[in-house]
């Protein structure tokens, strides 16, 4: 259980600079523009400690949200929003008919915990809806709201099939997880993935992650957690249809709705063509009717 070999190159107590390509030390992935990067969140390793929520807020300087006991098990964060880009969900399934489970499936049973985040969808509805081009796909294949462009129209908010992005009334702009776009530019692993104690949140090149996730599901099935499946990875039980795949995908052990995720989300922009064409057809029809009425009226008049 050793540290990365390159760690010995920076053994002084005051390195006094950012370790170049630190992501290699923290997750074994060298970050290069042009490649696709994302998160594989293996909820069976999540211990619900919320280090991701804190690391995200500390890095991005996000203010605290509502302060109140929600009563939803240990989830007092509520949901993702303008000031909360990571949200750990808790679902208790410990008791059934009075007695409590004691011997359990391996890796996270009876108390489901999952760190929810923006999915950075391949076909991102928020990006496709954004009229100002503020939301765009970066050179790392992640989806980012550019704060110097956004004019707070808020169209991305209803477009998102996961209810992630939200307008902040303090500064009138839309906000969501940027997959630490600034950190990626500096060769640093995103703050939440780096902080995650049990590596439930794994950052890496997207195809590598799909492969690793596939192996993990098989390994879990062998160990008896037969209900593990991938949500958001291509051709898996939890595939996300029109959105193609999610760059931040999940390994879940219960129905998606339990984690507040839709089982078959749709790509919002698929509905533009049918709606607009039907609308124009209706207008064309009415225009003909109007024309007919107009001209018939004229004969009568003469």
């Amino acid at each position, binding site marked *: *259980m*050793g*540290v*990365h070999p390159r*760690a010995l190159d*920076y*053994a002084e*107590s*005051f*390195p*006094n*600079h*950012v*370790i170049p390509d*630190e992501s290699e*030390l*923290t997750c074994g992935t060298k970050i290069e523009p042009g490649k696709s990067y994302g998160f594989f969140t293996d909820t069976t390793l999540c211990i619900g*400690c*919320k*280090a991701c*929520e*804190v*690391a995200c807020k*500390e*890095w991005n*300087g*996000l*203010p605290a949200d509502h302060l109140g006991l929600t009563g939803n098990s240990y989830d007092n964060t509520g949901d993702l929003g303008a000031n909360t880009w990571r949200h750990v969900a808790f679902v208790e399934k410990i008791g059934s008919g009075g007695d409590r489970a004691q011997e359990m499936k391996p890796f996270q049973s009876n108390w489901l915990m999952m760190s929810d985040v923006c999915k950075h969808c391949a076909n991102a509805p928020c*990006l*496709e809806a954004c009229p100002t*081009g*503020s*939301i*765009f*796909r*970066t*050179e790392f294949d992640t989806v*980012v709201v*550019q*704060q*110097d*462009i956004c004019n707070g129209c808020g169209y991305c908010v209803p477009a998102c099939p996961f209810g992630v992005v939200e307008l*902040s009334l*303090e*500064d*009138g702009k839309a*906000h969501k997880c940027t997959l630490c*776009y*600034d*950190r990626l*530019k*500096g060769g*640093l*692993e995103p*703050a939440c993935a*780096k*902080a*995650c*104690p049990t*590596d439930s949140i794994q950052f890496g090149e997207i195809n590598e992650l799909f492969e690793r996730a596939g192996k993990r599901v098989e390994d879990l099935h062998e160990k008896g957690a037969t209900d593990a499946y991938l949500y958001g990875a291509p051709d898996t039980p939890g595939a996300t249809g029109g959105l193609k795949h999610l760059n931040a995908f999940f390994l879940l052990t219960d129905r998606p709705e339990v984690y507040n995720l839709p089982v078959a989300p749709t790509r919002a922009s698929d509905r533009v063509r049918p709606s607009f064409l039907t609308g124009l057809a209706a207008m064309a029809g009415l225009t003909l009717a109007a024309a007919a009425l107009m001209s018939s009226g004229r004969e009568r008049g003469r």
Partner: protein
Amino acid sequence: MKRIRSRSLSDRIGSFVRDWSVPRQIAGQSSATKAAESSLSRGLRPRLEEADTVGTNICPYCAVGCSQLMYAKNGRVIHVEGDPRSPINQGTLCPKGAATLGLMTMPDRLDKVLYRAPHSDQWEEKPMDWAMDRIAHLTKRTRDETFVHKLPDGTIVNHTLGVGSLGGATLDNEENYLIKKLFSGGLGMVWIENQARV
């Protein structure tokens, strides 16, 4: 997340033209990626690169002993995150450790000496030197008034039961050493305890 200050018309037009995507779309760039990229995104860098000092810190919270990298600029801490070189946490941190920056810069952080006179109902600010002198004086007075050199049966005890000290588990070994050396070895205090029993 501060509100971007109002900008002059020429400044607005300039930045609009600089970041205008339509001409770039016409030139063939995709509207989802390159054409939409703004100048802020092009020039974006992690703020850690502005740090002039990066030191190794040990998390002040629990006894696991995670190592942290602390970035500072002009003498002010700008970020704290996990140290990838440590065999204990390898860059990871728990929610408390990850909040070390928040702890150091929290609004309630005490930065001056507060004093409450007996029977008073509010705090008042006092200079550090005055407080240190007063504490030294009080310590000496209470120690001398309650000091026992010998017990009635002649056993030399050299102790005082009048002054106590509580705390040490969150402090450095060097601090614990000087506390025990001064309070026990010097003043003869026996009521010296810390969180080990809490």
